[in-house]
């Protein structure tokens, strides 16, 4: 198993699309920073426009913490999309290049082979989120400095710089579970679909539908408390004044449950199917 994992890591970093993906994430971060630099003041002005008649403001809200929060918002779509492409490609490229047959001629158990892919996919996802967080904090703080964070979530919430930094770090941690979920789901879709383009389309559809369903309000406790699209926004809860920790823990634990289900589903299907 250990050797399989090492081989998967080697293959992952041998393929150029892994580095394209990492570069794409850095480009997105760069674009967020550049657009914030040019129109960031306007964003703050719009946000506080109604309050300007009543209050004087002293201090700068366009700072590194707001920028990290904007980068964090790539968790909704951009980051999972890139992860889906890379992770699903770990298996579909093996089907496409017919390397799977060669591997299966070796004395390797099928479930161990696909499980090692899941483990490497999870490790890769965690590393990418860590890299995103690290670069987001470093670049944002270097170019924009630290300061209070303002976020609109039904109410206008202000956080002191240190508190904002803590919440952003926790949000990255919580968001990692959500990103792992999408990566694992895309690997399972790859197990089912086998073909690269079809896998990407279905995995992207899965992401889009999850985002849409997250906004849909249905009068159902199961839908709100247990259905996976509703569990993916736990990181956003960290920006309420009083953090609903129980809700965050519950969502993340449930999401981990979904991750395990998707892994077992993928391993089971792969193990059962013949390699053609």
């Amino acid at each position, binding site marked *: 198993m250990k050797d399989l994992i090492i081989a998967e890591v080697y293959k992952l970093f041998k393929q150029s699309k892994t580095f394209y993906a990492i570069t794409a994430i850095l480009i997105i971060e760069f674009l967020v920073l550049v657009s914030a630099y040019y129109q960031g003041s306007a*964003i703050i002005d719009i946000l506080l426009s109604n309050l300007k008649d009543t209050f004087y403001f002293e201090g700068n809200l366009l700072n590194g913490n707001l920028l990290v929060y904007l980068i964090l918002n790539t968790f909704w779509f951009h980051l999972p999309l890139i992860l889906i492409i890379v992770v699903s490609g770990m298996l579909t490229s093996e089907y496409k290049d017919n390397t799977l047959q060669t591997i299966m001629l070796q004395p390797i158990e099928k479930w161990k082979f696909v499980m090692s892919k899941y483990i490497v996919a999870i490790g890769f996802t965690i590393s990418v989120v860590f890299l995103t967080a690290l670069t987001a904090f470093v670049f944002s703080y270097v170019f924009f400095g630290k300061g209070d964070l303002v976020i609109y979530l039904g109410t206008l919430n202000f956080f002191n710089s240190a508190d904002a930094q803590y919440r952003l770090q926790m949000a990255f941690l919580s968001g990692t579970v959500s990103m792992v979920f999408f990566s694992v789901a895309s690997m399972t879709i790859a197990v089912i679909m086998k073909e690269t383009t079809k896998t990407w389309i279905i995995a992207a559809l899965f992401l889009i539908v999850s985002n849409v369903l997250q906004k849909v309000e249905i009068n159902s406790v199961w839908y709100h408390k247990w259905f996976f699209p509703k569990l993916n926004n736990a990181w956003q809860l960290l920006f309420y004044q009083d953090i609903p920790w129980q809700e965050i823990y519950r969502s993340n634990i449930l999401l981990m449950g979904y991750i395990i289900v998707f892994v077992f589903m993928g391993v089971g299907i792969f193990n059962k199917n013949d390699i053609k």
Partner: protein
Amino acid sequence: MRKLIYITCLFLGTFMLNAQEADSDLLVVKERLDSIIAFTADLELNVDVSFINMPTKYAKMHYKKGSPVNFESDDFVMVPKRGLDLSMQELFKNPFITVDRGKEEVNGTVLKKINIIPTNNKADFAIATLWIDTDVKRIEVSEINTKKNGTYKIFMNYNTSGAILPNKVIVSFEIEKIKLPIQYVAKNVEVDRKKMRKEATKTGNFILNISNYKIDKK
């Protein structure tokens, strides 16, 4: 019709009887406040507005006669534009007349209630009401009806009987509900727009604890 004219004359007559150039008690208070040339103080700011969550903020306040009040802070701070004119220079800047509205008990203290009405158009308020403690010669409460920014009320607490400037100020003001630029700064916010329109204007409070006054007096 004739009855209406009599009533109007009677009302205006009563009003004019009480109206005077400037109330003597107010002039004493004004003289005390005018003696302040400049001051600095430390501020602890708390915002009590239903749709704003802000932690306690700290700032330094600088006042110099003839200039607007300045604030200095390492944090981001939000201070009300109105209600921090502790020297009341804005109120007395333009010519005015006063109307004695009698005595009124506020928080267990009997205070003299006076209306201030500006006599030219330059003043940015239409009418101000002051509740003055004549024994200690200072303003305890003021309510100012501005021409453009609604009404705000200021409650002032003093830590000693001889203090000219308050150690605690509560500014109560009307505030418009914020609009929603959520495409920039938030996502996934459930918004009841109908409810928001109904609650277009709200009342908020700004609570200031002021300490370490360094007052430069005449």
